[in-house]
């Protein structure tokens, strides 16, 4: 039997409400972490997974306190330990890799110092040895030229590099246990795949135990041996990761897996109704009762206990797990999307370039933008009425920039954006008339920031109705009610403020506001990235339904390629502000032809331990597009030579209607897919 390294026993953590009630964030958690194993903790936001990870370091956030139970490490309870003793364990025996390394590195201290600090605290090395060690560590996490990186400040590194520094810092104390709190959330797909691969390598290389906390089942599937699924502060399922991902015997996990869009499957995943209960609102009975498809009468009044099933080596908290066991292969059914494409072209983007370069005085006088290497260049896309076109690419690919230009927030440098063949939208907001503004609406990524916190839902939705249609009084109210009904929110939401809504509800309000203007085109900027998976599916389904009802055209921007696959008719792949490939989603996803599309799709993490990401290109970050030649030349693994460096590649068109911009002949690009 392998040695147990961390033992969590009956742990409960919570806070006191204003009324003096004890409200639990973690409820009676028990689990063991064995030496050398990687345990994934999965759950949606608010499930208590981060609180649990922090407790494993003996850290409880300001405002929370331990109600009962212990976290035992080397047979001493970390939660009762004095700070002075904890300082000797933190960083040396147990180390943390934080979610957002950009925020977690102290901004005024150089990278080298921050790693050195860990070495000073947790090793007896002398100064020169430490310097040596810093280079070694930075090398280990595969950062280029460690000596120069060590002299930089955190903000001078890219997101992926910052995350690697955080890993190096954690490894400095050669810990026995590594806690990772969403270490890849917020990174680009390709970077994420590389960081995960690095973590896997480190786990094997050093034999360190890892606890990997994430909401992303795709990432968890790639790293963990065992998975713990959490729901509203409880463990609902715990077992070997393959079994849990392939044959989940808890209805929540089952629903969660079904609501994740897959790369291999077009169409929208099924959503799970409802949302996780807020801490403190739990009633008697099973906490998943409201959302469960398998619930019975007894689930309402009795709460199930965590039951260990020896034959599966799995613990499950459900009365009905036996019936699930028989047919719980996740057979994903999708709602096929109806094509509502019409032949009429609604938006023509031709030869558009956009620049962020500052105008000097002369340029301002001449009303021009001079920049020979603009952020976005030569964009040609014609969008049909009723189409959903997705722009994909990593951060810095210019996808949001293009959206901003269509919305009028940024003026174009060159080229024309034409609506309905006649109206020119190349100018910015100030020069557009109200009707031009009405026909294009935006939905933003984060509804917390896009909804005015001091307005009620009614006021928020009323605004476009008043502005564009001059509605008043009763008529206005009826319209608001109709819109709320459309986004499946009850009338009683009208008087609520955004802070009283859940993430999904807020995004629905934002959707209702966009539709209030009766727009022809809606720009969706990462609309589901801030939402939990189960909520994401519901919002996607809603968007699709509304589109079918109103015949709206969507321009959809997302870094999540599986989401794009689920909802879009056509995909445009962008790199450094230049188009690489445009084509029908089915073709692009099934036969990715452009080398960059291959890289991008290869790096997607699927919640299936059998599908490993393919790492084709290095995850270097380029700050600026190259002056000449192909935009992807810096990272392309199939680069032909000088031709790629000097000449802009031509468009090649496949039989199925894909346009690919590459120097490699079409036949060769397509041949490789068969192999």
């Amino acid at each position, binding site marked *: 039997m392998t040695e147990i390294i961390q033992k969590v026993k009956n742990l409960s953590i919570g806070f006191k409400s204003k009324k003096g009630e004890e409200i639990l964030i973690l409820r009676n958690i028990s689990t063991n972490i064995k030496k050398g194993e990687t345990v994934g903790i999965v759950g949606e936001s608010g499930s208590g997974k981060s609180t649990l990870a922090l407790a494993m370091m003996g*850290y409880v956030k300001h405002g929370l306190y331990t109600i009962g139970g212990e976290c035992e490490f080397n047979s001493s309870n970390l939660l009762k330990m004095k700070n002075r003793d904890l300082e*000797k*364990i933190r960083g040396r025996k147990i*180390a943390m890799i*934080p979610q957002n390394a950009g*925020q*977690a590195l102290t901004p005024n201290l150089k990278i080298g110092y921050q790693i050195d600090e860990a070495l000073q605290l*947790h090793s007896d090395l002398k100064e020169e040895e430490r310097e040596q060690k810093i280079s070694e560590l930075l090398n280990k996490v595969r950062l280029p030229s460690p000596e120069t990186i060590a002299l930089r400040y955190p903000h001078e590194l890219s997101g992926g590099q910052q995350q690697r520094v955080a890993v190096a810092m954690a490894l400095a104390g050669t810990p026995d246990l590594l806690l990772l709190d969403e270490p890849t959330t917020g990174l680009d797909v390709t970077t994420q795949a590389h960081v995960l691969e690095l973590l896997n390598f480190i786990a094997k290389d050093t034999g360190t135990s890892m606890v990997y906390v994430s909401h992303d089942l795709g990432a968890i599937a790639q790293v963990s041996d065992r998975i713990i699924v959490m729901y509203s502060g409880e463990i609902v399922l715990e077992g070997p990761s393959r079994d849990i991902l392939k044959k989940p015997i808890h209805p929540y996990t089952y629903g969660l897996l079904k609501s994740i869009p897959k790369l291999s499957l077009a169409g929208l995943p099924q959503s799970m109704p409802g949302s996780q209960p807020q801490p403190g609102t739990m009633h008697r009975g099973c906490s998943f009762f409201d959302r469960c498809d398998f619930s019975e009468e007894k689930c309402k009044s009795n709460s199930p206990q965590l039951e260990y099933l020896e034959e599966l080596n799995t613990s499950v908290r459900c009365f009905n797990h036996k019936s699930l066991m028989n047919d719980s292969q996740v057979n994903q059914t999708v709602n096929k999307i109806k094509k509502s494409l019409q032949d009429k072209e609604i938006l023509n983007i031709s030869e558009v370039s956009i620049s962020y370069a500052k105008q000097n005085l002369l340029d301002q006088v001449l009303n021009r933008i001079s920049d020979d290497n603009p952020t976005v260049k030569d964009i040609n896309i014609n969008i049909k009425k009723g189409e959903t076109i997705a722009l994909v690419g990593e951060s810095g690919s210019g996808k949001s920039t293009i959206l901003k230009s269509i919305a009028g927030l940024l003026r174009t440098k060159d080229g024309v954006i034409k609506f309905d063949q006649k109206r020119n939208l190349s100018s910015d907001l100030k020069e557009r008339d109200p009707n031009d503004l009405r026909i294009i609406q935006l939905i933003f990524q984060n509804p917390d920031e896009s909804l005015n916190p001091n307005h009620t839902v009614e006021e928020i939705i009323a605004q476009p109705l008043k502005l564009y249609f001059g509605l008043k009084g009763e008529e206005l109210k009826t319209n608001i009610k109709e819109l709320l009904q459309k986004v499946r929110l009850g009338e009683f939401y009208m008087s609520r403020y955004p802070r009283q809504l859940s993430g999904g509800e807020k995004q629905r309000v934002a959707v209702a506001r966009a539709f209030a203007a009766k727009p022809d085109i809606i720009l969706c900027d990462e609309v589901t990235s801030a939402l939990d998976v189960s909520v994401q599916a519901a919002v996607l389904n809603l968007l699709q339904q509304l589109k079918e009802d109103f015949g709206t055209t969507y321009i959809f921007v997302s870094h999540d390629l599986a989401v794009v696959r689920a909802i879009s008719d056509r995909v445009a792949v962008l790199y450094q502000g230049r188009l690489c490939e445009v084509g029908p989603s089915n073709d692009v996803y099934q036969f990715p032809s452009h080398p960059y599309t291959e890289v991008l799709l290869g790096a997607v993490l699927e919640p299936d331990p059998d599908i490993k990401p393919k790492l084709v290109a290095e995850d270097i970050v380029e700050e600026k597009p190259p002056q000449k030649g192909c935009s992807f030349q810096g990272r392309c693994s199939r680069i032909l030579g000088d031709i790629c460096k000097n000449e802009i590649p031509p468009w090649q068109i496949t039989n199925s209607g894909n346009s690919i911009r590459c120097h490699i002949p079409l036949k060769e690009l397509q041949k490789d897919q068969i192999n």
Partner: protein
Amino acid sequence: MLFLIIKRILLGLITLFIVSLITFVGTEILPGDACTTYLERQAFGEQLEACYRRLGLNVPAYERYVSWAVNAIQGDFGYSLSGEMPIKEVLGPRIKNSLVLASAAIFIGIPIALILGIVTALWRDKLPDVAISTVTIFAMTIPEFISATLLILIIAIWLEWLPGIVIVPTDVSFFELLPNIILPVIAIAMIMTAHMARMVRSSVIQVMASEYVQMAILKGVPYWKMVFKHVLPNALLPAINVVALTIAWLLGGVVVTEVVFNYPGLGRLVIESISNRDLPTVQALAIILASIYVSINLLADLMTLMLNPRLKTLQIRK
């Protein structure tokens, strides 16, 4: 970097130019002028004409502005009306006195404010915080004319420890002035320290709640090392601008306190010259106060730029 400094200095000069223009136009628009004020009831006919010629008021306004501006740049602000002496000589000792008062308040007030702010933040919601915060909020809310009057009543009149008001000549030496400034300094420092301590407190609390401080704790960094290495450098950066504004406010003359204590500083001079309708002095004061504000803010911005690695590289890259 150099480009930025030059740009900021140019902007400052433009600001000063606009201020000088506004004050000049302001004094022109007001009914009456230096001669009518000076001559009072005799302000008519031959006498008035003679006065105009003597003071050069008979030439067009823009010409007067230009000659005034040219002289002002060289440090010559013309003659004060009330004292009939060069403004330069009136201002000199006043500036010195204000400087003495301000620096005393700064040297006492800023360290105390920093310590109080940091202590209250680190012991947030505990006894030291509750006690100090109550006192600072109290000190912030009492207007200075009340606290100054109370100080005079208690320390000067009841206890007779220190002189209550300043009755020395304007141009006394530093050491003769010293006992006189203790009470004004206390009155000013109280309100200034309270404001700054609150600022520092909220800034430190904000940084303490940041992810990088949590990360430092989870890295096993001992508490005080964390405070000095990870918290304070980041928390005190935004304080620089507040400190600069406070210094500018102090140097510009704390009008109310100076009047209450009869202190011969710039602030009292402002009041005096306005009530005497001594327009040339008012003009000169406006320009001097504006230059103090502009230059101290410029210094503060440059300091923030130097100390914040984030801003520094941003500028260099551009």
